[in-house]
């Protein structure tokens, strides 16, 4: 037998369209907002996540990756002198002004690393090589920021804090959480661009020796070094994410928008499923008169909700995937790992089934004697 729930649902195509629109709207809004949140979080810590380091040594009071205070590079030798260290590298992260060829200026985030090892350097290179940064006054930027920085081709020269900088490579999708594009360069160039004195660094990246637990090395370094803090890679990534997403309010705004999507979705779905139930209330009364239990009728209504959820989810995820794809070329990254897609399926089902509870409550109160009226 054709499902009564399915027939009730598809009988009124206009109402079905309204229901599905509500679900799709909610699914897209929630997915994109959560994807944006996830994208922001991943972008905020992308360099840490791709650094290959086990530990980060930062100046005491450090709040996030992008705002590391400089400290003496003598700490580097102290770190290298500690047992259990496979390697340790200086690392610069500093704000600077980039002067475009057309005279305009943009703020950039200078990332200075050792191009001999490539540790903490750029990834997803589409043009040039990390080793090209061994040459003086060379930089690598991301393709996304070419227009913003006025870079039209490889080899083009710009100025960073009045120092010449020649573009020798491009990356793809190496975004910055802030409005300041990342500019990768050698540690020595970075010192010039950032106007740091020669004996200063912002971070020390550390790799523990094979077989040594980074947490053990972290404790050893923390007790050995003064005026600095030592983080594991994941600790520092989390610290940076939390700072940018919650201390600045950016993440809260995104989560509120996602919550609004959920509320709007529930309200629209509840309203339309309720209206459908009211339309068929006499039929539900007839079912009751025929001997159907409340549970039987609940199953019909919940089945309607599940069918609506399944179709709305499929359509909503389709739209969301388009948004995700479009975002890959934009300034803001929208991420949608498979775990989020699965979570959204659960959320959509819960949303629709929760919304149908109002209708279930209504049906519970049906007086089956209504079937004799008119």
């Amino acid at each position, binding site marked *: *037998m054709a499902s*009564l729930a399915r027939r009730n649902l598809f009988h009124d195509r206009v109402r079905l369209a309204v229901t599905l629109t509500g679900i799709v709207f909610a699914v897209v809004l929630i997915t994109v907002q959560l994807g944006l949140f996830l994208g922001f979080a991943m972008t905020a810590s992308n360099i840490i996540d791709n650094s290959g380091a086990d530990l980060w040594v930062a100046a005491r009071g450090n709040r996030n990756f992008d705002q590391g205070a400089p400290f003496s590079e003598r700490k580097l030798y102290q770190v290298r002198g500690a047992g259990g260290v496979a390697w340790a590298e200086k690392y610069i992260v500093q704000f600077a002004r980039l002067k475009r060829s057309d005279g305009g200026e943009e703020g950039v985030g200078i990332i200075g690393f050792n191009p001999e090892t490539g540790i903490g350097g750029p990834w997803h290179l589409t043009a040039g090589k990390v080793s090209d940064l061994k040459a003086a006054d060379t930089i690598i930027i991301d393709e996304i920021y070419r227009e913003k920085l006025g870079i039209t081709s490889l080899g083009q020269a710009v100025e960073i804090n009045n120092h010449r900088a020649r573009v020798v490579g491009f990356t793809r999708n190496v975004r910055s959480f802030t409005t300041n594009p990342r500019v990768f360069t050698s540690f020595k160039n970075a010192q010039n661009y950032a106007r740091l004195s020669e004996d200063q660094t912002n971070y020390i990246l550390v790799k523990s020796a094979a077989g040594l637990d980074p947490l053990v090395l972290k404790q050893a370094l923390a007790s050995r070094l003064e005026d600095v803090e030592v983080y594991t890679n994941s600790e520092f990534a989390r610290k940076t994410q939390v700072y940018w997403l919650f201390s600045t309010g950016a993440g809260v705004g995104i989560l509120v928008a996602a919550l609004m999507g959920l509320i709007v979705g529930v309200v629209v779905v509840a309203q339309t499923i309720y209206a459908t139930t009211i339309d068929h209330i006499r039929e539900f009364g007839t079912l009751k008169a025929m001997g*159907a239990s409340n549970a*039987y009728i609940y199953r019909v209504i919940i089945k309607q909700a599940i069918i609506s959820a399944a179709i709305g989810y499929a359509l909503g995820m389709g739209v969301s995937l388009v948004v995700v794809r479009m975002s890959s070329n934009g300034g803001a990254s929208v991420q949608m790992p498979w775990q989020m897609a699965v979570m959204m399926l659960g959320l959509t089902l819960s949303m629709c089934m929760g919304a149908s509870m109002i209708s279930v409550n209504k049906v519970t109160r049906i007086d089956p*004697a209504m079937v*004799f009226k008119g």
Partner: protein
Amino acid sequence: MEAAISVRSLTKVYSAGASAVRALDGVDLDVKSGEIVLLMGPSGSGKTTLLSIMGCILQASSGSVRVRGREVVGLTEKALPAIRLDHIGFIFQGFNLFPTLTAGENVEVALDLKGVRGKEARRRAASLLEQVGLAEKYGSFPADLSGGQKQRIAIARALAGEPDIILADEPTAALDSHSGRLIMEILRDLAHGQGRAVVIVTHDNRILDYADHKAYIEDGKLAAPVDPENRKPEEVMAASMPLSLLSAGDRTRPVA
């Protein structure tokens, strides 16, 4: 023979704030298997209330209703659907078919409630439609059927649960005389041919001849007048004889 439905001292009071309306007042009635009983009376007399209570979809205020010997007054709301499912088939004036389902699927819903599904449900639904002469309408939607056909589908649906009691509310009121007769022939076969108890609430004088017994309700009380001049019952009803003038011995349908 044990009554299919036995009603004793049945009272139904509808409360509305401080006021109360006594819809049924001490009704006694027996309906036996294999007979057709017509419930007649003016609008608002309590016919449908009585039918609803006999059908276990409305709770009585007091009294007794036994369905196949089982007392149903006082049963919980959860217990009543099972009584309806096992013993009672309803036929409604407005047919109450599911408009989004085909004729066959309407019958299959009733079978589904009894746990009959799949091919067996389709086979039995087809058989039931054949019984009411509509085998070829299995795939038709109610909107494409005439009133008489809809009511025959409703009868097939009511029979799907194999009930021993059929309760019909104005089953011919919305039909032309030909369709009405067809419906009554089917109902008569259900009673006389298949041994089911059939109770029909009606205002339709055209079906009086199908009745084995007629019961008249007015102001919530059962009173079936004997007509000394051999007038038809509806003529007696039309004469609006005050029920207070009827003695207990005047009732044509004494309780068993």
